[in-house]
């Protein structure tokens, strides 16, 4: 099958490659760009493990053709780490509040939560639960995910806009 030229900005970097018109964005990210944070859980848009941020919207990349988003600005969970490599606020709060177990839904969860807090910086618990309802988790029962997002909102709101990079940084510990 003939391939088309694709150009994207992913996590702040310009990338390009060749893809069949039918290539799904999730496969382009995972197979071609080796960005394996977004996961495949259902391939029918239900589970949200593949959620990425495209031009300021949460999108399920398992049901999006890469051709549809040619030229777009995409953020995945890998792009939510602070510049110095430390965990971003949401990532740190998910850890702090035990908002993950097997970790498979986590990249999609955090990426969606990132956008949710842009859409609504002061969400109530109900708004968090509604706003996260497109992302399934089989391990946590959501209670600690809700807590983590709520704590992130508090933390982000406490930051003065000018010092946004200083707060919420925690040293990344060596992985096990």
């Amino acid at each position, binding site marked *: 099958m003939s391939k088309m030229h694709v150009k994207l900005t992913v996590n702040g970097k310009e990338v390009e490659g060749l893809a*069949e018109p039918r290539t799904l964005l999730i496969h382009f990210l995972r197979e071609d760009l080796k960005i394996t*944070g977004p996961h495949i859980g259902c391939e029918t848009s239900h589970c949200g493990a593949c959620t990425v941020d495209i031009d300021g919207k949460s999108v399920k990349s398992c049901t999006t053709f890469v051709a549809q988003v040619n030229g777009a600005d995409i953020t995945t969970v*890998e792009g939510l780490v602070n510049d110095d490599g430390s965990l971003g606020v949401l990532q740190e709060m998910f850890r702090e509040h035990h908002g993950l177990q097997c970790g498979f839904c986590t990249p999609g969860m955090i990426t969606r939560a990132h956008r949710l807090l842009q859409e609504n910086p002061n969400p109530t618990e109900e708004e968090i639960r509604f706003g996260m309802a497109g992302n399934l988790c089989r391990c946590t029962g959501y209670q600690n995910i809700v807590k983590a997002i709520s704590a992130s909102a508090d933390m982000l709101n406490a930051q003065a806009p000018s010092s946004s990079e200083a707060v919420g940084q925690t040293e990344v510990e060596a992985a096990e």
Partner: protein
Amino acid sequence: MNDQTLTPEERAANLKGMGCARKRVEDVRFTQGKGNYVDDIKLDGMLFGDFVRSPYAHARVVSVNKEAALALPGVIAVLTAEDLSPLGLHWMPTLAGDKQMVLADGKVLFQGQEVAFVVAEDRYIAADAVELVEVEYEELPVLTDPFEALKSDVVLREDLEGQTEGAHGPRKHHNHIFTWEQGDKDATEAVLAEADVVAEEMVYYHRTHPCPLETCGSVASMDKVTGKLTLYGTFQAPHAIRTVVSLISGLAEHNIRVISPDIGGGFGNKVGAYAGYVCSVVASIVTGKPVKWVEDRMENLMSTAFARDYWMQGKIAATKEGKITGLWCHTTADHGGFDACADPTKFPAGFMNICTGSYDIPTAYLAVDGVYTNKAPGGVAYRCSFRVTEAAYFIERMIEVLAIKLNMDAAELRRINFIKANQFPYQSALGWEYDSGDYHTAWDKALKAVDYDGLRADQAQRIEEFKAGKTRKLLGIGLTHFTEIVGAGPVKNCDILGLGMFDSCEIRIHPTGSAIARLGTISQGQGHATTFAQIIASEIGLPADDITLEEGDTDTAPYGLGTYGSRSTPVAGAATAMAARKIRAKAQMIAAYLLEVHDNDVEWDVDRFAVKGAPERFKTMKEIAFAAYNQAIPGLEPGLEAVSYYDPPNMTYPFGAYICVMEIDVDTGEWEVRQFYALDDCGTRINPMIIDGQVHGGVTEALAIAMGQEIAYDEMGNVKTGTLMDFFLPTAWETPNYITDYTVTPSPHHPIGAKGVGESPNVGGVPAFSNAVHDAFRPFGLVQSHMPHDHWRIWKIANGLGMHG
């Protein structure tokens, strides 16, 4: 460097040992998207495999034509049973003593069964080629009802025709698999005949599926130069998989390296061996290239690892005061087309004989008949220990049914029948020795926490309002007191494919006082890297942060039976403590040498050995570690490491009291959980944060199962719930908040007293939700209604009770 100003408590806190809500070390990777799951593995030249699957539930495979598929550019091979048969790999043994087709050998027995394996350069080409394989089928009559199957002339397993003896004794019919009997039939029937009261009910626990967010998959890589096969996969039991692969493929076991990388949830789905694993191995051997197979969600729900599907006919006898005198149960177990249940060999119905539950029932009898039908094989323990959820649901429904018959409060009926604290260790009528428990204390604490009397008063008022036409919502109070049996298990009782169910831990202390520990288990989200390090920290006094955990690589980890049935903490956790104690014993000798005193003149103090009576003279574990590598100590080998293979003397018996308060709209069938209280007693608590997380997740899985999740078939054997559109997984929106609580009754035989917790919430949660639904309708005459209690079925209950005018 040895800060003497710190108190022992402060030094203990610095270790982040047992009892500490230590943050998880795994999360640093996972939150950044740096997990390494099977589908993340990419090897040079890797090919991709995909299955042609049967659209029919029962059919003869007349022919398979591969030509068009093979003609597609990028297609490397198409494998069928014919190709696998010269290798003897067209069938494989199941964990239950049966055998199962890897690829359809002449016929198919369930919809979605694997017929051919296409190998191509990428997953898109493989998917195209699957469509190009032409299979001619001849449809056969379909049996989806196990009761019908036992009467039908239709023979499902022609390969077993004439075999009147199966792996678990006589077969009564060509679609019958086994009968398993426990307890005293005659005595139980005598009790039933003489009892003041007998309640009888059919309790159905429907077919469902563990559905972890990551589906099953594998990557096989055969190195033709070295002759070594590396197999990555979603394996809850990597060592057992290595042995199975060796036995069925003929490859020497030392030439097989099995690796379970990060696993995206298991819940029992990833215990068994699947056709995809075998086909990826064969394809790699045939092509000489690495081959990846990852199933999609529909394949996962249709073909791998169903759970439950038990029809449990029960009779419970009691005095008119409510003292239970006997329990009788006959279960018809629908196992699908092959008996692939994941149970210890001697337990074809798992630990279903824990069905006397938390109650002192003097006489009991259980029989289970396994039956073949045209459904997918499996029968895995979905977040439970080998059919314990079925047993707990059965007894917790029978208690409620008996309460109705006696016109008694169900909380009080439980209380007067609980095994008393002074009866432990308790010998149950169906053959188990419960290790420890204090059910009355837990129960009283739970009832008080939810203000049980107040709830009943609310409910009474609600009933009045409903009858007066002031509300259309009912209030249900779902009670459960469950007892689990986990931590399989003593090798004398429990094996899988002849492999004793011990587990293992190897600990190596490095010269600078850090450590690596390797276990025979494999985490799928339970946080082993965090909690097992805590056990070691408390046992040997090195900070948990300085201890690396490694699991899942059979070339490096000691042999173990893996993670399922809540066995990691009871078995591998015990092995961890025992290995650590061996290290401490050697450390004591080193410390005594360094301090120039006799071995018995030093004593352990949190993170050091100190001279008895002279605490200022001590050697810390860190100092001892260095000495182990740097001093020539007479009579001692250099180094500081130990391995323990732990064969537990008994199972552990965690228990808990769960209470669910549910609002039910009789007109729409909609439900809302108003309150959920979960008290768990898992013995010694290693990490309370992780315990709470396990409870939240397990209760949510219970919510799913009780309130809507099922693998449903139509009469043609078509799977009606093959996508996440139809298969209910609760979102954050319908999931309530849970209140968690605990009591601590340590296991007397476990080195650290821990019992395991991961599965309790599913075992206790399902009856709590279901009993809440039943309880709401109890005042209007409902006795028993089958799960799942989705809106439609709840509406039907209301309709059947004449609530819709």
